[in-house]
């Protein structure tokens, strides 16, 4: 059997592939549950339907989807320009820490400016962390995949250090947690009685802005040209280094904001684990969404569902935590498989 490049690439298939991948993931899920000895249809129901059959569940979908959508939209700028920032998890952590530090510094201040201030500081924190790989890339041509990924682990250790030290709640009986934030530092809820906060609106606003910028603004144009034809970008007079910096800054700011939205939203304090890997999962979200802001919005919700379904399956059916990762991995695997078959065909010899 040989793999051959196709002469023509089908446009409709490019957009159908994410849906095909979701369907294939479900089918593989049926096989998987069958092997594990569960009733596959009940399991799929528990995984994909039950979590969103109540208002509470739908609100949770928004809570989990918000950071994924935000980060993935930020990353998509770089991915379109062939800038491979893999370190959004670290940028989320440092951004969240910076915003959280502001909240703790003014923990007894009741001001309407505190929350916006936290968002700005968190964005700056994420950008600062993203600036390191951007500088190394533009100054020394260091591979940004490695530097941004390695800095993620440094960022997680910085969080660990601070939360076991200066950020620890003085009255917290030595638990590695910060003080609980006051109301002025917490995000207002969108629906009473649920955890859905106004961060979801921020995510929607970012999706809309990114859609306009990528489609109609010169910044988006530069990013697309650089990604598709680097020499044409230099012919047009676009600076490669500026676009690398811009990509990292957009992704860093988005990840930083996602971090503070977690801390000032569902968590309400700084804890040793801010994110269950949103920064990495967002990479899958960005690609499942075809690097298009609207696609990313829906992909983010699908991926959020996999988190909720995984949790539900653990509670209802005693499945291991790994089931979430398995489903996310299968989704990416099938999407990449579809992509290969869009560009190439198999030929039996």
């Amino acid at each position, binding site marked *: 059997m040989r793999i051959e490049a196709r*002469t*023509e690439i089908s446009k409709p298939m490019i957009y159908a592939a994410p849906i095909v991948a979701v369907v294939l993931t479900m089918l593989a899920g049926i096989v998987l549950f069958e092997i594990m000895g569960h009733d596959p249809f009940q399991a799929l129901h528990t995984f994909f339907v039950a979590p969103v059959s109540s208002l509470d569940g739908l609100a949770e979908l928004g809570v989990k989807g918000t950071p994924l959508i935000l980060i993935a939209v930020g990353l998509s700028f770089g991915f379109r320009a062939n800038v491979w920032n893999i370190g959004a998890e670290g940028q989320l952590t440092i951004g969240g820490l910076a915003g959280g530090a502001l909240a703790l510094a003014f923990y007894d201040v009741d001001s309407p400016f505190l929350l916006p201030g936290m968002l700005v500081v968190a964005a700056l924190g994420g950008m600062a962390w993203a600036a390191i790989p951007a500088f190394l890339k533009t100054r020394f041509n260091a591979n940004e995949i490695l530097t941004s990924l390695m800095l993620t682990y440094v960022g997680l250790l910085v969080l660990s250090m601070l939360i076991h030290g200066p950020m620890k709640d003085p009255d917290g009986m030595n638990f590695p947690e910060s003080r609980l934030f006051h109301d002025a530092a917490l995000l207002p809820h969108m629906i009473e009685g649920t955890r859905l906060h106004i961060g979801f609106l921020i995510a929607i606003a970012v999706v809309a802005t990114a859609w306009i910028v990528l489609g*109609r*603004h*010169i*910044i988006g*144009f530069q990013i*697309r*040209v650089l990604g*598709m*034809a680097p*020499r*044409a970008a*230099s*012919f*047009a*007079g676009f*600076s490669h280094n500026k676009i690398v910096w811009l990509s990292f800054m957009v992704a860093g700011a988005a990840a930083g904001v996602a971090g503070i939205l977690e801390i000032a939203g569902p968590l309400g304090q700084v804890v040793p684990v801010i994110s269950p890997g949103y920064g990495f999962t967002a990479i899958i979200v960005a690609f499942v969404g075809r690097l298009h802001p609207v696609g990313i919005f829906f992909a983010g919700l699908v991926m959020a569902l996999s988190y909720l379904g995984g949790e539900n399956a653990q509670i209802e059916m005693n499945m291991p935590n790994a089931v979430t990762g398995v489903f996310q991995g299968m989704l990416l695997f099938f999407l990449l498989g579809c992509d290969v078959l869009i560009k190439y065909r198999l030929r039996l010899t």
Partner: protein
Amino acid sequence: MQPLLSLRKLRKEFPGCLANDDVDLDVMAGEIHALLGENGAGKSTLVKMIYGVLNPDNGDMIWNGKPVGIETPSAARSLGIGMVFQHFSLFEALTVSENISLGIPTDLAGPGLDERIVEVSKSYGLPLDPQREIHSLSVGERQRIEIVRCLLQNPKLLIMDEPTSVLTPQEADKLFETLKRLSSEGVAILYISHRLEEIRELCHKATILRLGRVVSDCDPSRETARSLAEMMMGSDLTLPEKSVVNEPGPVRFTVTGLSTLPKDPFGVPLKNISFDLHGGEILGIAGLAGNGQTELMDLLSGENLCDQADVIVLENQPVGSLGPTGRRNLGLGFVPEERLGHGAVPDMTLWENGFLSAMGRQNLLRNGFIKVGKSVDFAVSVVHRFKVKTAGVDHNASSLSGGNLQKFIVGREIEQNPQVLIVLQPTWGVDAGSAAAIHQELMDLSANGTAVLVISQDLDELFAVSDRISVICEGRLSDATPASETTVEQIGLLMGGLDHADQSLENAAS
């Protein structure tokens, strides 16, 4: 006599484009058979099907009387079909024999390959040293490698796609001797070229394609270049006319003592290049590919910056340290050699590609947002004025044939009325009719006071359009001489480096 290869009713359709329809072709053993047609007529598609790169939708191929299906290039090679592509596929850092061994069946690549290379190359007048590394070879020598690689496999049919576009007139003559010798030994040659004179000299038969169909065949030696071109176009050819020589205008563009080391390890260093460009004149720079043209182009356009700003002066302003955007704003337009991926983004629409270089001077941005309507209008006006064949400006650049895209890219710059226009290979791979149109536009532009620099390997083109001609060889530029006072032969010798060789002899003697 039975034809070596017969094609019957061959058909190939791409989405939105019928590339070949009902094509019949007979190639006899020992025949040098020309394939003629305008850009987009379907010549490349046809030879790609013969070489197994593409597969036909319909129709039969008959090889020595037996129907065959040529599904892959290796199937074509095992039948005895070889092809020399327009773009070479060689590894710069490997030797000649290493490169050859990578492209032939493993049983041929074994011990003794060097001896076989020397033997074949000697007997066909294609001198090659198997141990030389590719980066030290000229383009003509690189082409020999590709030809020798084919000959080692004893082909019965050799397909050549625009082989002389990269050669000096002298090198081309040598190639013709080799081809005639092969033909006398019974090897059939399928020959694609836009140079009609050489087809008249070399080929026994010509098949003319238009819009994917065979429209006629003829004996090219009984035709004129003009009648061949008109057969291809299906209409009368208007040759460009140079307006009366007017007094050169003010100096618009000056380069003084430009020297650089190349960024690329296999690039060419430029040595002390100086020239003036007056408004209203066309200066031609001749030279074989790989003698510093791309390096020079990148510095003139601003894609690479000079060490000192005043090395390049545009409209009395030093611009050596300005990027392409700054130079465009001062009135420079430029057309790079590579169409896809450099002059245009293949996967973007035509109007976006128009915007690519016109956004500044045509004022296509408002607060950083693209004025889509105005950008589309600009692209439409380029398409109309330069008769670009396309289904619409919202189609991708990659959907255009090479010549049509070239018309769009050159037109995009001319439409902006630049003060200075620099063009590298303006009609590379472009058919006679389109080439004449592009030449006419360049001349009209210069007649209106623009300073035009044309860098090209095609001497016919340079003599047709230039007021003065100079030659670039190994990164040095000769002094420009008026085109009326020199000949193709003299320029051809300079391109081959004779001048330079004389100089070094003199230096050694003194």
